[in-house]
């Protein structure tokens, strides 16, 4: 199989043997791919970097794919710390939650739009929350946020709820300290894609807990090690 000049973003690289690199990329048509770039520095110089839209040509059979060519489209390179950390964070989510080579063009569009927003306003945490929500939907866990599935009632802003993964909210007597406990207002704002509200900290805690649930209890390392977002 040979794929010619497919639009992609580099998510992560790891040194492999003396001069090769393992390259993890999000591509427009093939989803997340793992590629080996032999003699990486000699062949591609320093072009294999995140934050830059590139076009990758690769070939290979089975699980071993070789990166043959890299072309850069335009540079979004920044020295902004928050943007870098946010990128590390969403790259970790993509690499840990999205199976290799599961095509999802909408994921590529989502990544590109999120990157654009993040680089424009690095302090806007709302775009990260929106990314988390849409990512979960794309990988097969869409969130049902506005309907109490046990009582067959619409979620009400003034009530409290407990969220059951892959099911939805259930009416609850009050709020507690666990990630799955939140107000109807927060649920409805999330359902409407409104992340500018005062409920943002509650949404953050909720999505953090939900992501850890889908990561089988393993914490997101970027959060743990860099203590941000």
């Amino acid at each position, binding site marked *: 199989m040979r794929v010619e000049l497919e639009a992609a973003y580099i998510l992560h690289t790891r040194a492999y043997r*003396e001069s090769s690199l393992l390259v993890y990329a999000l591509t427009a048509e093939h989803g997340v791919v793992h590629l080996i770039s032999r003699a990486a520095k000699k062949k591609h110089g320093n072009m294999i970097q995140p934050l830059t839209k590139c076009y990758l040509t690769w070939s290979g059979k089975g699980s071993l794919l070789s990166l043959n060519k890299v072309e850069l489209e*335009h540079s979004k390179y920044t020295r902004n710390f928050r943007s870098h950390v946010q990128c590390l964070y969403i790259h970790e989510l993509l690499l840990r939650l999205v199976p290799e080579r599961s095509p999802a063009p909408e994921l590529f569009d989502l990544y590109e739009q999120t990157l654009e927003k993040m680089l424009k306003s690095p302090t806007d945490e709302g775009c990260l929350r929106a990314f988390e929500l849409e990512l979960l939907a794309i990988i097969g866990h869409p969130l049902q946020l506005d309907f109490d599935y046990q009582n067959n009632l619409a979620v009400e802003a003034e009530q409290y709820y407990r969220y059951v993964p892959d099911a939805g909210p259930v009416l609850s007597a009050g709020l507690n300290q666990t990630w799955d406990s939140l107000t109807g207002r927060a649920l409805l704002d999330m359902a409407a894609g409104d992340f500018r509200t005062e409920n943002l900290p509650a949404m953050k805690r909720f999505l953090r807990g939900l992501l850890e649930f889908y990561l089988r209890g393993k914490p997101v390392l970027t959060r743990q090690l*860099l203590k941000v977002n």
Partner: protein
Amino acid sequence: MADNDPLLNRLIDALRVLPGVGQKTAQRMAFHLLKSDAQKALQLGAVISEAVEKIKHCSICRNYTEETVCSVCADLGRKASQLCIVESPTDLLALENGTGYRGYYFVLMGKLSPLDGVGPEQLGLDRLEQRLQQPEVEEVILATSATMEGEVTAHVIGDLVKKYNLRSTRLAQGVPVGGELEYLDLNTLSQAFDSRTDY
């Protein structure tokens, strides 16, 4: 390899720990060692075990040394006001050989990379913080690589430096000497353009 050559197999397997050495290369190396001067092979084995046993991290900068303090940190003729942060001993050597810098170093032995499980603890930032508290340090030069992880590392250390009211500087990014613009990658070109200086 035949099953009745366990020692030969062990030697081949042991050589495969080296970067870039696969099964075939390891076999060639093993046969070369056995075929050539036996004394030299024994010497290689002895040096490897002695080096692994005796070479540790410098107690001040974390570079490799067989003493408690490495030769750079023990050199009292260096400029104590400058401390340069590098990712690896090879970066230290590159700066020593390629620049006129004669201050001291701190070697991180990596860069912050959450996906690889490398956090502040693994880079010895607690020890770096102790170093920053020494009164003679005035400037901290952040010489981590210009990758995303290198920038994050520089920023985290930069924050630490600010805590002690010290000056922090970062290596410049731009057109390499002898580089022609049309052959420059877009990231380097845009960085060089954005950080242009008065001339």
